[in-house]
């Protein structure tokens, strides 16, 4: 009953249970944090705007992105993944989400930033509906924990539009 094997087994089971409990509590403690984030995106320039040979509209633009996401970080946060997506409606599609730029914030010190960038991923429509199109720019963030549940949220910024003519 009290052999070496049994004691080892009991010790291992106990250790694993405690570890699992601690992971669970670390993940639950994220709920105590109520983040308040702010962000602003300005479109500085439409670099070019054309119809691809395949018939899809494509646009290249330059943005100014500034954000303060420091409040997202807790002791259980490994990193925050952020991206800016253009979101719009077309007659064919009820929702189009096109990711334009993304980044990984590894630590709280880097969570307040300002960047001037052109789109990292191609802004291509399914079809040619982009002329004069009104769209939203949304800053999404996904909080990756050291362990446990992942969180995501976003800030929607409205009132952007593309030019009426290709250039």
């Amino acid at each position: 009953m009290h052999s070496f094997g049994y004691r080892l087994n009991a010790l291992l089971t106990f250790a694993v249970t405690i570890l699992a409990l601690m992971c669970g509590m670390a993940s639950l403690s994220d709920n105590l944090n109520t983040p308040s984030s702010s962000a602003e995106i300005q479109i500085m320039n439409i670099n070019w705007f054309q119809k691809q040979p395949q018939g899809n509209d494509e646009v290249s633009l330059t943005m100014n992105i500034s954000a303060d996401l420091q409040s997202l970080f807790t002791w259980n946060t490994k990193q925050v993944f952020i991206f800016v997506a253009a979101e719009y409606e077309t007659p064919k599609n009820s929702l189009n989400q096109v990711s334009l730029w993304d980044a990984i914030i590894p630590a709280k010190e880097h969570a307040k930033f300002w960047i001037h960038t052109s789109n990292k991923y191609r802004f291509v429509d399914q079809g040619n509906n982009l002329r004069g199109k009104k769209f939203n720019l949304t800053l999404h963030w996904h909080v990756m924990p050291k362990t446990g549940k992942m969180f995501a949220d976003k800030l929607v910024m409205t009132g952007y539009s593309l030019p009426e003519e290709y250039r």
Partner: protein
Amino acid sequence: MGWIGDTVDSFKSIQIRQLLTQAVSLGMIVTSALIIWKALMCITGSESPVVVVLSGSMEPGFKRGDILFLHMSKDPIRAGEIVVFNVDGREIPIVHRVIKVHEREDTGEVDVLTKGDNNYGDDRLLYAQGQLWLQRHHIMGRAVGFLPYVGWVTIIMTEKPIIKYILIGALGLLVITSKD
């Protein structure tokens, strides 16, 4: 002869009743594991509720050997979510992030493009020849939770099968020779 003799004696002393009890308790362990797995399948709605990350394409978020908990709900797929998908002609599912979504007005079908956080380009090179978008039926689930390192156990066992057999053998011997 001491230790070997004892072991042989313990084999000899096995009664039919004891053998049956051990078979039943072994069966209980196997079935309860199966029950937990199937229950997880029902709760999460995903055919594999837990996956092990096998590549470094999502680093530094997910490393090789981390495990992910999946959930498959009716909710529409949106950009930014981390999904697990199967590409036609590839056996191993891939865990990557959605970067583009186009959802049809009339049918509600979605066209999805994915990319690994640590990869330079999007996933069109990984898809089947000529495939530009993923559809709903390719996607097995979205990642909702994360646990580091635990997946190494399965990685080691699949890559070094000998360790798996030793482990199973040792456990089996323990069950057979234990006396209560």
